[in-house]
């Protein structure tokens, strides 16, 4: 057959019947629908939560935002001095302690485990245990804090103090930091390390100049996300003695003296006010407002994590 000649129309008809779409792919359609429903349920749940909280709490925030932030724990919800400053202060202090302690120790451990430690049964055992620790319920970390920091170490930590809470939360968060940093470091391609060694870099130089910059987005994202977890946990705070009543004394926002004093945190305040809502309905809106503040802080941290990750990924080219 010469090129350019029209093909046999019977062939065309046969091919058409073979490759043209059939109307029914019912199973595929149902599957897709189920997936969409799953997504919808997730989104609806989140939406309901948000709408509920914002509806209750927005009036409080919109009318007296500044006072709310700076106010303190009060027994009456109508009290104009009611606010979350003590909880906010406590939570921010805890965040600071976690950042200063858990991040360097966690990232350092991850670097050691991934780059320096020999791959043998001992290191596998250690890694397995770190994974287990990440899954331990947070209340158990609270017990650790209570048994170790609040009791025997009271002279150093001040007993039921922000310092104890910060140390406890650092322990809670440490395994997560190690795991996420390890995964980020493991994801660095070996070709990059080889390139570094190839021009005569020492192991430390390869880690510092090639591995860490490449892993930075992943490490940062992981650590910031773990920080939002630390801010939201209530159980360990309860055990380590976050105050459920009024606090005495007014310290400045970042007065280090506060480290060893009685303290409270945002999750605890929320918890209290929800309970107080039984006897004084005004606390319901107050608790909703506090929840909004906590959500906002967490959202801020997560956004910072995403922005930083994007920045480093772009720099990485």
């Amino acid at each position, binding site marked *: 057959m010469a090129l350019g000649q029209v093909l046999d129309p019977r062939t065309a008809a046969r091919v058409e019947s073979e490759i043209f779409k059939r109307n029914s792919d019912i199973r595929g359609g149902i599957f897709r629908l189920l997936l969409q429903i799953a997504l919808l349920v997730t989104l609806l749940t989140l939406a309901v939560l948000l709408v509920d909280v914002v509806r209750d709490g927005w009036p409080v925030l919109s009318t007296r935002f500044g006072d709310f932030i700076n106010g303190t724990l009060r027994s009456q919800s109508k009290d104009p001095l009611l606010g979350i400053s003590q909880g906010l202060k406590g939570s921010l202090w805890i965040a600071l302690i976690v950042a200063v302690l858990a991040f360097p120790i966690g990232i350092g451990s991850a670097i050691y485990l991934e780059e320096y430690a020999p791959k043998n049964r001992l290191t596998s055992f250690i890694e397995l245990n770190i994974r287990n620790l990440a899954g331990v319920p947070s209340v158990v970390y609270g017990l650790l804090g209570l048994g170790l920091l609040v009791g025997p170490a009271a002279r150093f930590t001040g007993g039921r103090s922000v310092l104890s809470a910060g140390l406890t939360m650092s322990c809670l968060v440490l395994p997560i930091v190690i795991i996420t940093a390890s995964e980020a470091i493991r994801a660095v391609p070996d070709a990059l390390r*080889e390139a570094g060694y190839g*021009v*005569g870099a020492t192991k430390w*130089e390869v880690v510092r*100049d090639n591995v860490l910059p490449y892993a930075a987005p992943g490490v940062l994202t992981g650590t910031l996300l773990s920080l939002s977890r630390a801010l939201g946990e209530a159980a360990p705070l309860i055990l380590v003695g976050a105050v459920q009543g009024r606090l005495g004394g007014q310290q400045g926002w970042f007065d280090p003296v506060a480290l060893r004093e009685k303290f409270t945190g945002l999750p605890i305040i929320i918890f209290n006010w929800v309970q107080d809502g039984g006897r004084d309905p005004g606390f319901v809106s107050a608790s909703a407002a506090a929840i909004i503040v906590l959500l906002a802080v967490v959202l801020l941290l997560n956004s910072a994590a995403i922005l930083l990750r994007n920045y480093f990924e772009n720099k990485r*080219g």
Partner: protein
Amino acid sequence: MTTVEATNTGALTETQAYVEATNRLSDADVVFDVDELSVYYGDYRAVRDVEFDIYKKNITAIIGPSGCGKSTVLRCFNRMNDLVPDARIEGRIGYHDVDLYDDRVDPVEVRRRIGMVFQKPNPFPKSIYDNVAYGPKIAGLAKGRGALDDIVEESLTKAALWEEVKDRLKTSAMGMSGGQQQRLCIARAVAVSPEVLLMDEPCSALDPIATARIEELMQELKSEYTIVIVTHNMQQAARVSDLTAFFTAEVDDVTDQRTGLLVEYDRTQSIFSAPNDERTENYVTGRFG
């Protein structure tokens, strides 16, 4: 002796080639002296009983079918196999007659003198300038900002890349084409003023034009550096190298393991036109491999 005209450019008659080659070799220093080298990964013997010498300012090609230990042997020359946990060698590699695997030898110093270009271009995810400057910087080779700029320009020029990138030194290396990235890797390798350049199939990820440019480059670099190149491409070995080592693999009857070994090592002209071993002849004439 009949005179045979080679068919590629720069053709020499057989007699002329023989005379040139022997003259060059007799003047040449031995840079690496490989003595009964075997390389093991754990219990697996990847390569056995390799015995050959690498001569100064010559291009030595290592050819052979897949899996016969070519890259393994190459990576022994700059201690890159140290990075593989189970790897060990038996035998001796002398670098200017110093045992390369002596306990007192610092692999970092070795790698500054024996550079490497890898199969897939692997520039650092940094700017072009920083890629080239990194090696000299950490080796302390540049005193003062001006000196580093000079090294970068010199290295990029040697890699035939300067004209193309001189106006965008601060842009990311990742934005370059594959051929340019590989030339950047060559520039990076020469920036630390090594004596030897090891090239592990440097062109296998590149298109023919980029390949031709790099082969051209190798001829220029030969005047300053000793080059050892592993290549799958026989024609490339024939075009580019002065000496060729042909490896093959044996399969052990009992364990089914493949172990590489050196079959023949000679001047490139001889390997390709009059090999001594039948296996070499079969490979270079395309009967297998």
